[in-house]
């Protein structure tokens, strides 16, 4: 098991390098293919109507005129060793992991991302607890009551949940529960450490919006999984032993049906930790997703690189945890 984890972690490092390379390439090479030169690139990060000298100064400060391999090397070195940055009267040291300085604000990217992480974390974890509990229980009940009105009704709602885009449900939720009937007025993020009650109250609408989509998915998945599991031979054996049906479902059925659900959950959570973009933008929550949108709109390479790598990291770690978890849950899968 330890060997397995180590191998995977090494693989993770390589994967992150590849991700950064691809992001780097997209950012620089594609505009170059369209004919953009470094002067034009630098001009994006200066105020309106700059003098030529101003653009060149920016070009130099951001290192845009350097060959790409040099820029990339600088980037990698920053992550591992930290970087020194000319910030004005002094040179500031940006400790590892240093994802560089924003082209726009000239401030270090890593602390900015880290300050956004709690928001995304709050949103993702809260929503995930909701959808896991909600979705799985509805899925189990639907499977056990297959064909009944409950089953049909809940699967119908689930279909709606899966089909409706988040910005639709989010905006409707805001319109109804924040503006029209001020049950949750003024949705703004309040840190947990500041006021747990307010933290939760403000996040309820985004949690429900996000969870609705996923709960629907998980209800359908769980239902399918349960139906399949409950038709397995070992369920029949459990009944043949005289186990009460409750225990058959809960201990023998659910456990097996949930294993794939757990793995999918790990992946979904990993993806969300990189930023629930649409939900965050709809509810003005300043998390990593919001950060991503701004970084892209501003063509801010260090921020784009930073958030891409962070998101990739979360996903890869989530995958690793999921694989380990699978081995823990399912004795047949052991390393």
């Amino acid at each position: 098991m330890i060997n397995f984890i180590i191998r995977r972690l090494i693989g993770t490092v390589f994967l992150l390098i590849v991700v950064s390379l691809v992001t780097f390439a997209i950012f620089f090479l594609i505009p170059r293919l369209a004919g953009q030169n470094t002067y034009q690139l630098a001009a994006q990060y200066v105020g309106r109507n700059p003098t030529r000298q101003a653009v060149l100064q920016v070009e130099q400060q951001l290192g845009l005129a350097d060959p790409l391999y040099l820029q990339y090397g600088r980037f990698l070195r920053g992550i591992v060793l930290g970087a020194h940055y000319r910030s004005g009267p002094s040179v500031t040291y940006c400790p590892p992991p240093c994802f560089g300085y924003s082209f726009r604000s000239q401030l270090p990217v890593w602390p900015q991302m880290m300050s956004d992480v709690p928001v995304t974390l709050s949103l993702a974890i809260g929503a995930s607890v909701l959808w896991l509990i909600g979705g799985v229980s509805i899925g189990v009940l639907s499977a056990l009551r297959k064909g009944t009105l409950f089953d049909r009704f809940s699967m119908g709602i689930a279909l709606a949940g899966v089909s409706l885009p988040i910005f639709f449900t989010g905006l409707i939720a805001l319109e109804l529960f924040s503006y029209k009937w001020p049950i949750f007025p003024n949705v703004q993020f309040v840190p947990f450490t500041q006021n747990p009650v307010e933290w939760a109250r403000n996040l309820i609408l985004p949690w429900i919006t996000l969870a609705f989509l996923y709960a629907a998915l998980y209800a359908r998945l769980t239902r399918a999984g349960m139906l399949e599991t409950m038709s397995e031979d070992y369920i029949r054996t459990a009944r043949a032993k005289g186990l009460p049906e409750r225990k058959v479902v809960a201990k023998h059925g659910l456990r097996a049906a949930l294993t794939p659900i757990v793995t999918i959950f790990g992946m979904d959570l990993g993806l969300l930790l990189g930023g629930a973009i649409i939900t965050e933008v709809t509810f003005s929550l300043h998390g990593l997703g919001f950060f991503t949108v701004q970084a892209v709109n501003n063509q801010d390479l260090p921020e784009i690189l930073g958030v891409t790598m962070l998101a990739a990291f979360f996903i890869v770690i989530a995958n690793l945890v999921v694989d380990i978890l699978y081995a823990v849950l399912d004795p047949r899968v052991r390393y």
Partner: protein
Amino acid sequence: MPDTLLEVEDLRIHFPTQDGLVKSVDGVSFSLERGRTLGIVGESGSGKSVTSLGIMGLHGGSARISGHIRLDGEDLVAASATRVRELRGDKMAMIFQDPLSSLHPYFTVGSQIIEAYRIHNDVSKNAARKHAIDLLGRVGIPQPSVRVDDHPHQFSGGMRQRAMIAMALSCDPELLIADEPTTALDVTVQAQILDLISDLQSEFGSAVIMITHDLGVVAELSDDILVMYAGRVVEYGSAAQIFGRPSHPYTWGLLSSMPRLDRERTSRLVPIPGTPPSLIRVPAGCPFHPRCRYGHLNGGRSETEVPQLRETEDTGHLVACHLTAAERAKQWGLLSAGNVPDHDKEAVPQGGVET
């Protein structure tokens, strides 16, 4: 009979489906004494598994069960589900065909046996564990105190089936139903398992119902044999009677389609023509008649009249067939001498030859 453990009387198990009412078991009756082995043979779809599941009460709510199943005098069909559940695993136990899929992959073999034991017995975990190890030893699993903590996939096929048997016997059941216990195993292991069952039967004193399509298995173990077709009993008797003087064309078919050591290798096997009938639209009259080579000898009765289970000249040997005893003896004589019948029916409708 004073020693009757199980008495099945006119058991019918029907399943309503979108396509119609599936009559999986349609009037099955037999009895089983303590300590004896009954073998139930038949093709897939003959209703043998459905019958055994019905005895165990393992059918879901959609099954329509009528008739009587008396276990030690208690009617299981009339009993509440809770009562049947109490008996399940305790007084009557079942082992299944594929031990790999029938044992829960996530739990250790020991914990599954312990669970089976503790449902019906209020004992400590330690005591149950000791019992499980003991059982594993008795079914012939080496190093049982180590293997008790292994998972099913860590056992070989034969070992798994032994473990399953151990689990079934954990509560010392009076009735053990074995549904094709050796079908998924290879031949050498088959023999071991059958021996094991036989030994344990004498040791525990339980009655055994052995369900199989393999006549060789049946010959080994059974005291009595029940032949089922299309949800009904077509022949019933002791092993000696069934093998010695088979009386139903279906039984003849089963016996003839088996390769035999005492025949020429080059002599052809005589299969039963056709396919099992639809249980929704069971053929009228004798359900076997579309595939029977001898139906034409009955002057049309096979097509219209359902043959009843009647005793032959041997006591305790019952058969449901319109053929006269004399005719039966003659035809069996011909068959067992190796003569293939002249003509096979062509263009047989549903329940007959594949067209």
